């Protein structure tokens, strides 16, 4: 296990986090909100936690940037960093799954689509898991399932609170039914966390869909989301094809889910740390 800080770069990581966060190159970034499009000085965007100062649009964060943002001083101890994917089905579509894995590992500097960190948030010990969308769409296969399950079991053993930051298109097709079973595995572990009366805060970010939403992401004691995130079970295209109807405006956005009673709150990224700290004051465990 190793300590990481906001500024430290892991060997083998191809790009510093700021270049992976925002697509536009150079010292300026363009807001990804089509109705805004404001040109932002990249340093300002970074200082504003990758939220557009003009319109409040939340740029997607990498898993590393997410953990750096949530933990005190961006410091945390990574857990189970050596859990690595295999190719249990020998899956080949347009390219072999093995090649996709190697490509994603090179691009992200991660072995799979999640990082689990243990550290402090406003002084309180906490475990936070963050998903990496750039790793095959943040999809959940055996590694994501195993690392989250271990994180939950660790929280039970050490009586620690848990936060999972979801950012995922759902279960990973290339691991077939084994990916599906991760939903059951994690949910069973969450039942034990619940029995142990330990808090689980689920933070849903853009996007959280499919088997991730239909398992741990919706099982928080608190389910909270960042503004404007796409959250749902079925994809919009599948729904449109099935019911042959146009979808209502704002369908499957955070605010839509809030309105329909599926979220406790929509929380601005700049207020997340305060929100979580406040939640932990309510839930305990008392430090």
């Amino acid at each position, binding site marked *: 296990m190793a300590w990481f800080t906001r500024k430290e770069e892991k060997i083998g990581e191809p790009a510093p986090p700021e270049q992976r966060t925002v697509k536009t190159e150079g010292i300026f970034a363009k807001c990804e909100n089509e109705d805004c499009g404001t040109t932002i000085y990249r340093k300002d965007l970074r200082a504003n936690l990758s939220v557009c100062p003009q319109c409040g649009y939340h740029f997607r964060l990498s898993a590393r940037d997410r953990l750096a943002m949530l933990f005190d001083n961006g410091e945390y101890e990574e857990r189970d960093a050596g859990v690595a994917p295999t190719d249990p089905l020998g899956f080949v579509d347009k390219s072999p799954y093995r090649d996709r894995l190697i490509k994603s590992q090179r691009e992200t500097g991660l072995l799979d689509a999640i990082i689990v960190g243990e550290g402090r948030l406003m002084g309180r010990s906490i475990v936070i898991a963050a998903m990496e969308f750039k790793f095959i769409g943040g999809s959940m296969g055996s590694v994501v399932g195993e690392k989250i399950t271990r994180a939950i079991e660790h929280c039970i053993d050490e009586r620690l609170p848990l936060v999972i930051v979801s950012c995922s298109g759902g279960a990973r097709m290339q691991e077939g039914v084994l990916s599906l079973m991760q939903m059951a595995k994690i949910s069973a572990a969450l039942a034990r966390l619940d029995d142990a009366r330990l808090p689980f805060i689920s933070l849903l970010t853009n996007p959280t869909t499919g088997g991730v*939403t*239909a398992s741990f992401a919706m099982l928080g004691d608190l389910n909270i989301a960042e503004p404007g995130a796409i959250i749902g079970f079925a994809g919009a295209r599948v729904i449109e094809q099935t019911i042959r109807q146009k979808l209502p405006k704002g369908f499957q956005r955070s605010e839509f889910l809030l309105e329909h009673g599926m979220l406790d709150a929509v929380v601005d990224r700049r207020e997340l740390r305060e929100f979580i700290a406040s939640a932990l004051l309510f839930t305990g465990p008392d430090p």
Partner: protein
Amino acid sequence: MISDESGVNQEKAGIRMTSREAESVGSEPIERVQLARHERRPYAMEIIERVFTQFVELHGDRRFRDDPAIVGGWAVFEERPVMVIAHQKGRHVRERQARNFGMPKPDGYRKALRLMLLASKFRRPIFTLIDTPGAFPGIDAEERGQAEAIAVNLREMARLESPIIVTVTGEGGSGGALAIGVGDVVLMMENSVYSVISPEGCSAILWKDSSRAPEAAAHLKITAEDLLALGVIDAVVPEPPGGAHLDWDLASDYLRTSWREALERIERMSPEELRAARYSKFRAMGRFEERL
């Protein structure tokens, strides 16, 4: 008898295949998909009326509606009172639509959970029968929390105090199947399939071309033998030669035998033992390696 109406008995007499022909049936994964979706495949109610007695259907989720895509109720299995929960497809055009082709909405999953909690309270065994293309993808389903309904079932099934026997009888369509699929013994009928995504859906996403479904079906490893090899199910329930659609009675006999064996194995375990074993069972699923 429904089998008379559907002409299954005539078929049984006339088209029954020799065992050699039967061996070649369903050898390709996509053929298994076709058998699992066969329009004459026995659906839940046809199995329930053959294997259980005194089935009494119970309705509704106590929140919004009664979802006809899932049926549930108590019944008697070999002199034991049990709860049965199942996806239910429709046999004819109107019923198919009424049952939404076996695709539940959140209300169906919530009804299922309500009935399972009822069984758990009185420590009665639970049988679930899985046969769905998937959870319904629709505006109303999303509005009422399709994902939440499935998720809660996964968590709660993990800690029910009843013995749970899960059987995939036809299509095991992803999360919509798993939402009633967490149990102590998980079985698949020989020609059923169980998958994270339909072969058509997988083909459309990964190949950008839905005609590659046969390849997707092969790669996804969705047959009963595949899942047995992957450690996801405990056993395969045999079907009559050529498939369950050719002989509903015999298919039901095979199920009864498998269920009796499964129940005898777990019915004397305490709630604590059941929950611990159920946890270990799902905890072990997945393949990965440890690097230093």
